[in-house]
């Protein structure tokens, strides 16, 4: 039985890298006594795969891990059972059954939503000016950035990978940027790259630690490239009663 778990990774957990999160969840499965399926062979491992790695320093309320189980309790009870053995900063948000034919989360990831905030002391002086300029920047035919590759540097156009960008305000009234970018194996755009390219176009410098990043959702594309239909990974499964 295929299960998709959605979880949040916040607070100090943002300093835990992707590989360590995978190890963390393997131990979580044992502590919560999830009846997970193991591979065959001399050193069996849990059937488990993660959707999209999250960079160190980024928080998220939309992390996904797919597992296979031999038996399961209801979604509600499994969420509680797993949450009981988690540390501060990690929280399971949903536990859903996937159709048996469902592809692994990793292979269907197509886009992700992020919220970006400037850390205190790094904010633009004039927000209106900042966003006006950003609108113009995004209106361009193409947005070229330099990408370092093994063979040197190469110019790439990131415009097709920016699906949406809007000005937003946090609960306490601070300016922030909401963005949807391409994610996954086909194309993957780091959201901070957009801001960096914009700021450089205006002769500003984006400090190394200036942006606080938060992932809000990860999507699969259920239509074609031309007119994508983004569906949150969570909605591809159903609650177990």
């Amino acid at each position, binding site marked *: 039985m295929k299960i998709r778990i959605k979880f949040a990774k916040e607070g100090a957990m943002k300093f835990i890298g992707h590989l360590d999160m995978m190890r963390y969840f*393997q131990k979580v499965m044992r502590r919560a006594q999830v009846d997970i399926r193991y591979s065959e062979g001399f050193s069996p491992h849990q059937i488990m795969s993660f959707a999209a790695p999250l960079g160190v320093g980024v928080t998220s309320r939309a992390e996904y891990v797919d597992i296979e189980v031999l038996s399961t309790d209801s979604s509600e009870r499994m969420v509680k059972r797993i949450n009981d053995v988690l540390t501060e900063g990690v929280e399971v948000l949903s536990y859903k059954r996937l159709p048996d034919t469902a592809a692994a989360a990793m292979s269907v990831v197509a886009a992700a939503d992020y919220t970006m905030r400037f850390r205190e002391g790094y904010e633009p002086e004039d927000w209106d000016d900042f966003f006006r300029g950003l609108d113009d920047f995004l209106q361009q035919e193409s947005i070229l950035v330099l990408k370092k590759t093994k063979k040197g540097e190469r110019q790439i156009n990131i415009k097709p990978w920016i699906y949406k960008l809007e000005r937003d305000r946090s609960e306490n009234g601070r300016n922030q940027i909401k963005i949807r970018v391409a994610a996954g194996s086909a194309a993957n755009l780091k959201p901070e790259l957009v801001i960096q390219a914009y700021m450089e176009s205006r002769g500003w410098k984006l400090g190394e630690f200036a942006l606080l990043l938060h992932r809000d959702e990860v999507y699969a594309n259920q239509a074609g490239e031309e007119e994508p239909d983004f569906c949150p990974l969570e909605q591809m499964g159903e609650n177990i009663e």
Partner: protein
Amino acid sequence: MRRLALSDEILLSVQQPARYIGGEVNMCIKNPSQVDIRFAMCFPDVYEIGMSHLGMQILYDMFNRRDDVYCERVFSPWTDLDRLMRQEQIPLFALESQDPVKNFDFLGITIQYEMCYTNILQILDLSKIPLHGADRTDGDPIVIGGGPCAYNPEPLADFFDLFYIGEGETQYDRLFDLYKKIRRSGKNRWDFLKEAARLPGIYVPMFYHVTYKEDGTIDSFLPNQDGIPKTISKELVQSLDDAPYIANPIVPFIKVTQDRVVLEIQRGCIRGCRFCQAGNIYRPLREHSLEYLKNYARQMLNSTGHEEISLSSLSSSDYSCLKELVTFLINEFQGKGVNISLPSLRIDAFSLDVMSKVQDVKKSSLTFAPEAGTQRLRDVINKGLTEEVILKGAAEAFHGGWNRVKLYFMLGLPTETLEDREGIALLAEKVAETFYDEIPKEERHGKVQVLASSSFFVPKPFTPFQWAAMCTREEFLQRAYSVKDKFKEMKNKKSLKYTYHDADVTVLEGVLARGDRKVAAVIERAYEKGALYDSWTEHFQNQIWMDAFEECGVEIDFYTTRERELDEVFPWDFIDTGVTREFLKREWEKAMKGQVTPNCRQQCSGCGARSFEGGVCFENSN
């Protein structure tokens, strides 16, 4: 959300930020304002090493069972963070509350190996605690040292307020109660140390005065206050099952050296190898019952979610319920995706059978520790392993499908000759020959690999070899070269590999192991000159230490190569480990004659540990 001591900027610019944030599974959370005693428990090395240490987790668990104590953890910041903390004036903090160590009542440092001594000074320095006990005031924590190196605490005497000698389970409750009483009555740290010095196992260096003879050896070592004991007896848990173990070990986020459940099956050792400090200071052997271990195995696997369990002890094959325990672990856990990691076992039919069940024979290797190349020298060091046993074990293993063998040796042992050194290569050769003799060509999977490695011998306090002279750096290297040359002459040299350890570190370890109070100045000078993480090859800078010796006017040879008289007063003689100096002397003399001493189960040799009235000494006397 928990507050962190370090900013995002700092955490994102150092390697492995998870070393500094705490918050792991099973970390103890208490409100610091609601306890009487805050204890910072420190392992003076990087997080991944410190978190792999069993003793620290045992005490952490035990202290935190008390409602009035909050025990938190502290490790050495890695060199990248060390630099930033000095630059930005950030005080060292404990992982749990992220509060500065300076605000704690106690800073307890476990001292597991000599090469961590400069890291101890780093911990004090970054905590902004004066390096010298004499300079501390009521605003500073009481700095306690413990662990195996506390059996010769003298090189560190200046830096600690007190040392706890022996196993931690027994006296800390009394120490904490005393601390509370002193605080309630408005008395100060001096009063506390004065009272603490009377507790069993507690050594307060400032209350002792040392005088030296002209030749630099100790003339007298006496208390300088009334009511302070002349000798300190080590503390010991008489019945291990009565002591609590770690029900809920902390599970690090990052991969640490010991990333598994570790079950301590016994303490002490019956073997009596004459070079081994642990085998002498932890006497007598005491075992846990099978039931106790079964319970903890289940509970610890459940509470951690670890995918591996291993056993810990000095000589696991001597554990009397080993078969039952290993069988239980395999039957109970192996089907549940839990690996059983076996300690090094004496190679026989049983161990080969269980090894083939729990590990991939093709990928694993077999380990023997003959320690010396000839039977004569193995008798000198009282290592009961014979060539016959090694070759028979190797033959059985080869039939079982193994074809990799590791052999561990020491160089620079007392009475060692060229013949003993060449014996290392000859023994490795015989193991390889055994493979070709025993296994017909068509049944061989690849060729045999014999990996021999040698470390250099460092005489340790409280062993029969505490009187032994050590080799110089050049002698060590010469000896290693002669072994290497002999390996080149072997017929099967393509199947053999020989490696040896670093000699510079060994010499330094020798000075620190048998050092006295005069060595403290060198440690401090080396630290000031930048020595840190000396146990890490990539950070060890021998020249710094050599300069520090020179500048402090301390002679290395006095501590290492000097011949010691049988009646010399050693810096550690004020400690009573239960094993008497007479016994050690007897063993030293027997060693020189190449006579062996039977193990504790064969016959009692009267080492003195019987005075603890427990363990193997009373096994058959019910």
